[in-house]
């Protein structure tokens, strides 16, 4: 039962990085409307989430199984989104109502 004990310094660095990214998201939302807002916002959110998961939740120091569980749960979320959206986006392809 050996814990990897993370230095306070690391925690603080991550924390301030998170804050910086928070400012970045809000800032980005004021960009002119031509910018790819959704993309930027989601990229930043993902980075933030990854930082929290890796360090606050110690995944970076954990065994492979924890990695797999963490990644798999996100993968499943994507599967649900991808396949459902695939239906909605391909609906207009055929010029037949209802297909």
């Amino acid at each position, binding site marked *: 039962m050996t814990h990897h004990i993370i230095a306070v310094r690391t925690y603080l660095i991550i924390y301030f990085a998170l804050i910086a990214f928070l400012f970045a998201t809000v800032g980005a939302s004021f960009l002119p409307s031509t910018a790819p807002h959704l993309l930027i916002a989601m990229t930043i959110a993902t980075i933030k989430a990854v930082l929290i998961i890796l360090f606050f939740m110690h995944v970076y120091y954990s065994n492979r*199984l924890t990695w797999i569980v963490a990644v798999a749960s996100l993968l*499943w979320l994507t599967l649900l989104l991808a*396949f459902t959206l*695939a*239906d909605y986006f*391909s609906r207009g392809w055929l010029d037949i109502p*209802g*297909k």
Partner: protein
Amino acid sequence: MSVPAVVVEDPPEDYLQEHTLKSWLLTTDHKRVGILYMISVTVFFFVGGAAATLMRLELMTPRGDVLATPDAYNRLFTMHGVIMIFFFLIPAIPAVLGNFLLPLMIGARDLAFPKLNLMSWYVYIIGGMIGIWIMVFGGVDTGWTFYTPFSTMFSNTMVVTAAVAVFITGFSSILTGLNFVVTVHTMRAPGMTWFRLPLFVWSHYATSLIMILGTPVLAISVVLIALERIFGVGIFDPALGGDPILFQHLFWFYSHPAVYIMVLPGFAVVSEIIPCFARRPIFGYKFIAFSSVAIAIFSFLVWGHHMFVSGQSMYAGMIFSILSFLVAIPSAIKVFNWTATLYKGSIRLDTPMLYALGFIGLFTMGGLTGLMLASLAIDVHVHDTYFIVAHFHYIMVGGTVMAYLGGVHFWWPKISGRMYPEFWGKLSAMLVFVGFNLTFFPQFLLGYLGMPRRYFEYRPEFQVLNVMSTAGASILAIGYVMPLVYMLLSLRKPPNAGPNPWGATGLEWQVESPPPVHNFHDPVVVTCDPYMYSPEEAERDYAHDQHVRNA
């Protein structure tokens, strides 16, 4: 690291010894929780079966006559579906046999979270009570699929209560799954490597993955239904900007994988019974093991095959269709491997084996009709007809219920310490097989003829086939009541089974029956692969026995 000293007062020897009600209701012993589940799912099975009986009676004639109103019929099939699926079949094998056997099979003293395990039973019972409450005080008439906007805006029955019941029961299934996965990962005995696990454990592992990843989606979709009804906000109602198809996506994202929650444990049981009664190692262990996990993963990618004519895009339909074919292949692998396991065996046709062989035949048939449904054009015709009803009863009743009964007969000596009467066992297995086919085979014909499902009244030309089906159902009913009776009667005798009546391998057979409270007396170390049977040795023993008997 030093292990702290543990002072345990001498526990009572076998797990059944304590008799107080409290000792049952507060138990954290996985074996006792398994028994609690066994009693409760049996009750629900007969409640659901009673609903089926009434439905079959109603369908004897084309006009509505047995039940007073179509609403009564609609409530019946909804309750039949909800009870059979959520309160019977999903918990049946995992929560009864899985709970009882999983720790024994991997050489653990209990599941990783014993209290959570007991809690899952209580959660299940609360859900079940709400379910019974609904039946008594009004019922639900949406079908077990809860399709919107009927369920949210039009039905004036107890949909919200039903949503709550399903939501709660879902949690019990999540807890069971969580417990199993963690147990398999962390609590295997020394030497119990992944490829020494009995296939029962592999299948339950795969089942648990689906429970963990799928059930929450069902939970949120019924929550959304409840919210939509309570606040009138139209998440799925086109009148308010919603899309009813979205509900179907969310529902089937769980409910398709859920059909594998129902059948994988059946595979688990059959994979134990077949090698034991063929007295030889199972053929293609790794293929069977991996195909379970493959099914668990790919089952999440085919849900749209329930929606081919729902108005989903044609391209999505094609993707879901081809993926459905692909997910059928791991099932094919299993069927062929089981069959190959009979080759060069020394086969005994005891009751569990009869059930297991019945399972293979009926599952094959149900599965192959599933392929017809996965074929887009055919599904257009047979969708929502009795063809579907026949398909899923072949797999769920012909398949899983058979496997469950086979498993109960197989492990009954272990669970109770007593043998059941072999003659009656065989008779009931045959009755179930015959009755089953008579009930559900005509429904394939009805379906292709075009009789839609969930019909209270139907066209007169369908009557003959319906009468056959009802006749079959009554045989089936006898076949199901019999084991209940003789199993209960067998409890009156003193334990007579001995630790290993079948001469099976597997850790659960190494301890006495019923097993001791802490499962094992000495630390377990596993040194060999599973299913180390030898047909030749079995033959020699048999010849010897015959010899002794004749002398």
